[in-house]
């Protein structure tokens, strides 16, 4: 999928799906929340290369929720995630996990 994106991109302007002339889908709160993760974990969870800070695309919502819970209760050791996860409510984490699982693969 990522390779396809890169290949298409290399050929010229990407064909973005049409923005409805009147209205459009807009950006949901879930999408905005998920975008706060993108600096480190990739736009829509995708990264150009494998990195020590992982991409999140293709992960299930349950997996993302479990990892974040493990960071929160220190079951999974971390440097920064245990501190970041405390800035997000359970409801926000659900929205992010669901959005990434639906849109990130």
């Amino acid at each position, binding site marked *: 999928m990522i390779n396809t994106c890169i290949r298409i991109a290399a050929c010229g302007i990407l064909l973005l799906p049409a923005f409805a002339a009147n209205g*459009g889908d807009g950006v949901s709160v879930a999408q905005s929340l998920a*975008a*706060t993760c993108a600096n480190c974990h990739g736009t829509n969870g995708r990264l150009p290369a494998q*990195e020590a800070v992982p991409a999140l695309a293709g992960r299930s919502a349950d997996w993302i929720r479990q990892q974040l819970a493990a960071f929160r209760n220190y079951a999974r050791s971390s440097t920064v995630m245990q501190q*970041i996860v405390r800035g997000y409510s359970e409801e926000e984490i659900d929205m992010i996990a669901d959005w990434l699982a639906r849109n990130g693969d």
Partner: protein
Amino acid sequence: MRREFLKTMGAGALALLSACATQNIRPKPRVVVVGGGFAGATVAKYLRLWSRGGIAVTLIERNRQFVSCPISNLVLAGERSLADITLGYGGLAQLGVEVVPAPAERIDPEQRRVLLAGGLSIPYDRCVLAPGVDFMSEDIPGLASEAAQKRFPHAYKAGPQTVALGKQLAAMPDGGVYALSIPKIPYVCPPGPYERASVIADYFRRYKPRSKVLILDANDGVASKRPLFLQAWAERYPALIDYRPNMPIRDVDAGQGAAIFDFEQIGADVWNVIPAQRIGRIAVDLGLKLANGRWAEVDWLTLESVSHPGIHVIGDATFAAPLMPKSGHMANQQAKVLAAALVNLFAGREINPRPKVMNTCYSFVGFEQAMHVASVFDYNAEQATFLSVAKSGGLSERASKLEAGYAHAWARNIWADSLSAVY
């Protein structure tokens, strides 16, 4: 529907029809972004992505390439090259951003257009100013001459000065003194100068062990990640770093190679003077409402200037919310709040009333060890600003090799999130 309409209408009505059709095909809303740093690049990318190409985006940036300030301190110390931190705007162009490699001269808010040199002008529905900062060199009169700027470079916008200062450090004989003048906060990237002192100290430790790093800080103590920097310096460079707080610079004397402070004049072999900063000139000329004459005051829900409707400001140029750092990461996050707001505004949808932003910032304390500070902010409607979420965020316990790996990954990932066509 239209075909049936055509069939049923006589040919004489065609002229009328085409006039109607022209009105029905509404032109795409156009956003013009001034400045292609982390803030400007990110908003350009996400406007295209989130509007699915429905918003026309023009990015005006004087430099043909993006040079990252994060990681640039390692370039000074010879651990990375300028090429390693330089990226093109090709990814944005692939997403349909019209990239204009020219300096923006001024904004005409009445006519809603951005003027370029040579009389060119670009109209906008919404204008985004991401101009970064200018140095307040007028505070240091001796810096006016070109010779002084070479002798006292800031190297605080990654690019030619980074290379020039790196060459001066490489040419400095063992036993020399590198002196760094740090302005009072707020300035861009609060830990940046201390990271710089640290990696240059590591360079000296390895290659010029009789040399010294002299830090002359206008602040009353290390302004960011204080306990971690002090710990790293005490452990790693005990005799190498001389840290002096409460030392605001007053002037420089290029002839003497010295800087002037309240009670003394100090000489050094290699000077690095980082002046205080303010929002880029184009915003000052426009007459935007600025806090302390330096930073744009914005409505945090839309990043719109409080004085100029239709003009939005993001990145280092904004008057920050409490505890919010001026960082590339935060610039990228603000850009996404703005992109979402503009997409929804043009689509006639509600603007997110509870935006959220977060920051992660890595600093190297040597070539191979780094540490972080992280924070998360929620919009608070009562106070109309972003506030740090209680009990969230924090510092590393100590610098580590593990986090040096994360720091490099962070840099590559944020470069991609801000500039790459992969999504």
